[in-house]
């Protein structure tokens, strides 16, 4: 028997970063908010305390903070001719579980994307002509702009106390920062993190080639910081247990440090833990969602939670799945290339060169999640693509973010996989190796999409999301182009041993960690025929339903995805407050 609960004004599915940011805006305007989170509160657990916080086997290797793959996973096929099979253990991307979501275990790299990213189709058409965009690449503008998002970027960066060096303040390019970043109002809220030895080595080589290296913007706090809401961050201790861990020093900006403790003090805010959302109640005629159905994981009781407004703030896959299983919006069909839900599913590409230098002490254990020194000369459309045969690009960087005993081992090619020689190589090179990496843009392809698997279901009996995904010609060309640039930088570093620059290989392999960032499925846009949600993230077919997160990105950039989705979540909070006051299509 489903129990029906008293109505709430705004109900948010998923207690992660977007929910916390939207709830901040809503509750400060007096709007009642209920957040439903499937997991627990991690703040008092072994994962948030020394010495157990440092348990690499438990939190990293065994994914102690991630989604339980035995309860819910995704299926994968590389082409429609194949039968998809469930991924039983995922490494390619890491959805979080518990209050704070994946922002508990993130690394903290926080970019504003290129200021042309929201108008990527227009930008490429204007620069290279309409014919330059292949037919099978459905690049789309987002229906918004950097200028519209900019005040929310400013707000988010102040709330999360970002550490960085500005490269563009109101159009003036500043030395030491990223000259390709969109114009900012001023410096970052905090000074940049310390450079690592790997970062300094990369910086010198990049400068010798005429590039402009800069410290990547970081949500790891370079000092003690108090934000606009009076919430506090401690100073980063460079312990190397950031990504895949909860920071016990309160030095990584997360919703569990900066948002939820504050929100819980507000009378109009409630969070319910262990509540797994299984469905939305959709009034097709009235074009409204009337409530959310969830299962209390502790009792097994199912509830119907009526709501005036519903926001989907779950993981990319879950946002898409809730629309598909509840038949809200038209599913994307790759044959006719019509429909929208599941469209423009993108990942990102990685690859790199590993360098070994006998006389340099890189000490990889001294690191924060975002101790990364980067160049942006070859990212996205920061360079002329005429005659190159591809669009997009990649950031290139030295990212030294941990030297943990299980995962932090770089060994020269040809080292035996076990035995005395393996041990000796570990001892010889642990402190003396670094990597030149990359993170590349992934543009949509008509055959890369999400739909419901016809065979496999999760522990709740709901169909799994099926990933239809493979690397396409565009990504393979980016990879080869960037590998050449990485090899040039590696040569300038002049290491004792340098591996060849690795390039992307097909098929896509979900067993390897690459960049963790998937996007799309519920994309935003100005045209209801080609997008799921409006530029205000309002569902075209259910005007009181808002979808927030990387699932609204119409393509994936060569940057980590958190910045724009955080800005959009803050804006969606304001938009929902306006909608509550006067329900309408915004």
């Amino acid at each position, binding site marked *: 028997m489903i129990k029906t609960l008293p109505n709430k004004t705004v109900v948010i599915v998923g207690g992660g970063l977007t929910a916390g940011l939207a709830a901040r805006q809503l509750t400060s305007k007096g709007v009642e908010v209920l957040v439903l989170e499937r997991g627990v509160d991690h703040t008092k657990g072994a994962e948030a305390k020394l*010495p157990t916080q440092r348990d690499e086997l438990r939190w990293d290797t065994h994914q102690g903070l991630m989604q339980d793959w035995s309860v819910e996973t995704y299926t994968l096929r590389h082409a429609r001719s194949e039968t998809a099979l469930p991924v039983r253990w995922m490494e390619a991307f890491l959805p979080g579980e518990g209050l704070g979501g994946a922002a508990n275990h993130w690394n903290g790299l926080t970019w504003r994307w290129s200021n042309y990213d929201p108008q990527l189709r227009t930008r490429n058409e204007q620069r290279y002509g309409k014919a330059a965009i292949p037919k099978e690449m459905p690049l789309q503008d987002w229906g918004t702009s950097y200028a519209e998002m900019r005040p929310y970027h400013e707000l988010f960066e102040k709330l999360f106390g970002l550490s960085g060096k500005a490269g563009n303040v109101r159009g003036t390019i500043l030395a030491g920062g990223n000259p390709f970043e969109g114009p900012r109002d001023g410096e970052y809220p905090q000074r940049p993190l310390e450079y690592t030895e790997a970062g300094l080595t990369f910086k010198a080589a990049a400068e010798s080639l005429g590039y402009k290296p800069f410290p990547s913007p970081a949500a790891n706090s370079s000092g*003690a910081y*108090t934000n606009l809401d009076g919430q506090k961050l401690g100073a980063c201790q460079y312990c190397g247990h950031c990504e895949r861990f909860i920071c016990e*020093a309160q030095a990584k900006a997360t919703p569990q440090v900066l948002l939820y403790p504050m929100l819980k003090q507000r009378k109009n805010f409630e969070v319910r833990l262990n509540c797994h959302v299984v469905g939305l109640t959709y009034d097709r005629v009235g074009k409204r969602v009337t409530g959310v159905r969830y299962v209390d994981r502790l009792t097994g009781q199912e509830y119907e939670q009526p709501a005036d407004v519903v926001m989907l703030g779950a993981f990319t896959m879950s946002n898409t799945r809730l629309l598909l299983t509840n038949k809200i919006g038209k599913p994307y069909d790759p044959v006719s290339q019509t429909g929208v839900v599941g469209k423009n599913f993108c990942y990102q590409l990685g690859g790199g060169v590993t360098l070994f230098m006998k006389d340099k002490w890189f000490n990889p254990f001294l690191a924060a999640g975002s101790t990364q020194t980067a160049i942006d000369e070859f990212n996205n459309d920061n360079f002329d693509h005429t005659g190159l045969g591809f669009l997009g690009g990649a950031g290139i960087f030295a990212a030294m973010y941990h030297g943990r005993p299980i995962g932090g081992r770089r060994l020269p090619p040809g080292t035996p996989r076990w035995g005395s020689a393996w041990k000796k190589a570990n001892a010889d090179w642990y402190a003396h190796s670094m990597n030149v990496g990359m993170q590349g843009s992934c543009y949509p392809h008509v055959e890369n999409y999400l739909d419901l698997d016809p065979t496999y279901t999760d522990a709740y009996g709901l169909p799994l999301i099926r990933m239809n995904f493979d690397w396409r010609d565009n990504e393979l060309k980016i990879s080869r182009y960037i590998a050449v640039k990485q090899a040039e930088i590696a040569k300038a570093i002049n290491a004792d041993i340098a591996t060849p620059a690795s390039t992307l290989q097909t098929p896509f392999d979900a067993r390897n960690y690459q960049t963790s960032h998937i996007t799309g499925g519920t994309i935003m846009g100005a045209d209801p025929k080609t997008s799921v949600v409006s530029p205000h993230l309002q569902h075209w077919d259910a005007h009181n339903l808002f979808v927030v997160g990387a699932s609204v990105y119409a393509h994936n950039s060569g940057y980590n995805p958190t910045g724009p989705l955080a800005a959009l979540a803050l804006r969606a909070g304001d938009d929902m407050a306006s909608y509550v006051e006067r329900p309408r299509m915004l």
Partner: protein
Amino acid sequence: MRADSMRMEFKIALAGIVGAIAVAFAARGATTADAVAGRAVFEQCAACHSIDGNTGVGPTLRGVVGRKAGTVPGFRYSRAMKSATLAWDEKTLDGYLADPQKVVPGNLMPFSGLPDEKQRADLIGYLATLQ
């Protein structure tokens, strides 16, 4: 076990004497505690330590001066801090804040220390006001 703890106490007593001498020397210089400046230094502690009696990520620092180490009710201390036979006063706090792992090896505070003597003195001056 017993011999160990006695040795520990002896070491701590010795550290206390050394600390007292250091403070005596410092007092002869210009280092006097400035509680107002200390409040600014405290910003580095505030993400984890409250001053209002509430337990956070770290124990509250209200009443820390004069308290026996590892004794705030309800806070889960490390074995190292629980068995440290220390009372927090100007001297012991100064030593601990200079190098937390040296004074209480194995304690779980994720903070590497305040190298600046004046900052430590100011901070302790501020902590003394939190009664």
